[in-house]
């Protein structure tokens, strides 16, 4: 029973971070109608940024996460118009070309990281590393708890932005109907670019949290892309609200499989379930809409 409680706790804590990882991805799909293969790449680069900020400037990841957010939001704001351009171009299949474009971006990030920083994993040290809280039978690493809270804070920020500001209203309008939103005076191109910037900022921040908990190396991006896909497909592509439940579901699933079946099967099970969900309920288990 204690083991079970511990497993559930671990799953919930990881689930919170998966929510943070996927929420921007969903926003991008809702607004730009682009599946961004580079989602794991942004997270991986965020992790490296945190590593270098600790290694070179000695800034704790829980402070540097704000710097990382701003840095990657600016990068994303610059890349966003390119993706918008491809997606709204007059190519025969703009959706597939946009998919191929983000696939190329991802390859560029993965290959660039391999080239610059080679294969070895790097740990990101934080003041919270190595401290534990004991609540009844359950041991909680302070690091994971703080990362979880930070992830929830970021996600809460996204929801406030979406539902309590004029910018958020514009984003939701574009997601509902791009043409009509444009007719109502929304600058669709600018909103899209800002949403992409917001997405890269959030995803890189999630990458900082993940790198602090585990470690970062050039090949982790593939796994994060897959996790983001999993959560997004379970929630229904483009559904921001559904991510809250789907993220926790994946966190719990991974935790339970790792504990009771074996760590080396966890990826296999994740891939298998993702595949089955795509076959049985491609529109998502939790419905859709922003």
């Amino acid at each position, binding site marked *: 029973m204690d083991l079970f409680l511990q497993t559930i706790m671990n799953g919930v804590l990881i689930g919170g971070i998966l929510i943070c990882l996927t929420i921007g991805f969903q926003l991008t799909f809702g607004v730009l109608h682009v599946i961004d293969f580079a989602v794991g790449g942004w997270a991986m680069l965020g992790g490296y940024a945190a590593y270098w900020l600790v290694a070179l400037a000695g800034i704790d990841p829980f402070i540097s996460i704000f710097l990382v957010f701003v840095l990657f939001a600016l990068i994303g704001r610059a890349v966003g118009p390119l993706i918008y351009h*491809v997606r709204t171009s007059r190519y025969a299949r703009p959706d597939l070309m946009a998919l191929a474009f983000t696939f*190329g971006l991802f390859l560029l990030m*993965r290959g660039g990281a391999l080239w610059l920083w080679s294969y070895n994993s790097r740990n990101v040290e934080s003041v919270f590393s190595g401290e534990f809280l004991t609540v009844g039978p359950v041991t909680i690493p302070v690091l994971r708890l703080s990362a979880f809270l930070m992830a929830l804070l970021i996600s809460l920020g996204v929801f406030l932005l979406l539902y309590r500001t004029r910018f958020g209203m514009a984003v939701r309008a574009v997601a509902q109907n791009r043409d009509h939103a444009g007719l109502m005076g929304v600058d669709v191109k600018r909103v899209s670019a800002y949403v992409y910037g917001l997405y890269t900022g959030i995803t890189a921040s999630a990458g900082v949290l993940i790198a602090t908990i585990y470690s970062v190396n050039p090949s982790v991006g593939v796994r994060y892309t897959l996790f983001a*896909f999993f959560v997004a497909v379970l929630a229904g592509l483009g559904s921001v609200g559904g991510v809250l439940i789907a993220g926790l579901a994946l966190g719990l699933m991974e935790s339970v499989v790792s504990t009771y079946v074996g760590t080396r099967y966890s990826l296999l099970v994740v*891939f298998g379930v993702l595949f089955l969900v795509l076959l049985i309920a491609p529109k998502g288990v939790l419905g859709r809409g922003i």
Partner: protein
Amino acid sequence: MASNPGQVRGNLFRLAAIAVGLLALGVVPAFIDPYSLRIVTGALMWAGLACAWNIVGGYAGYISFGHSAFFGIGAYTTAILMQAGIGMPFLATLLPSVVIAMIVAAIIGGPTMRLRGAYFAIATWAFAEMLMQLATILDITGGTGGLSLPAYLNEFFFYYTMLAAAAASFLGVWYLIEYTRFGFRLKALRDHEPAAEAMGIRTNLVKVQAFALSAAITALFGSVFAYWTTYIDPMSVMGPEITDQMVVMVLLGGLGTIWGPALGAVVLWITNRYIWSTFGDTVVYLPVLGLIIAMVVLFLPNGLISLIVGRRRGRELISRILRKF
């Protein structure tokens, strides 16, 4: 098919060009050193793989990020059947490898190709990753340790095998796409799926046929590759780099054209080998691939082939050259 004299002449011209090309490729081994021969053999393999990916990506309009799975199925089928216990001869393993790949493709493709393009891309990708994980766990595939095959060190054999496989793939696909009902259906559904359906085309069936054909060709090259390198492990035959290269080669050469993928494959493979011989490894090749995809999508959506053969312009150029003789 060809009813007017112009078309007959065009077809004769094409057949003559193909015959000359095959003859030229057939005598290549006599003129180059073994190292270069290996590079040319590799170029033939990648050209064939690009051709296979192009059936689904270029003609059906469904981007697959999971073709490494079929390459791996082919490689592992051949490797397992040639292990000491079973000991089948190499050529006999080709049929099982192709058949297994087609069956798996039909099982995977049936449900996922009903989904829209983005879901299909995710599903194939998840499937390929799942299969790679499986290959690292199972005993029959040797886990992460991989499998060794009986070594057969005859570069000429592999050159001509790859040449035969590549030529068969290209000519077969060319014939199927340009001269049969299957090809017309495929192009119809790529251009407008609802309209194709309204014309009475069973789009799901055609898509699955295309996917199975593509998987079969990919598995065939996987089989030859396994015997050629004599050692395989999950990363070398199922790793994401295989799919990456196939996608980039087709995009670079020209999506949905017959000869574009071959052009893209040759250009990229020579680049790959050049980087490998200059830097000692191919790490820098990955970011280059990524950059190429992004640039092609932004500036050259129809690929390199659109620079060379602007369809009519290219044909005029050739006829103008011919008139001078």
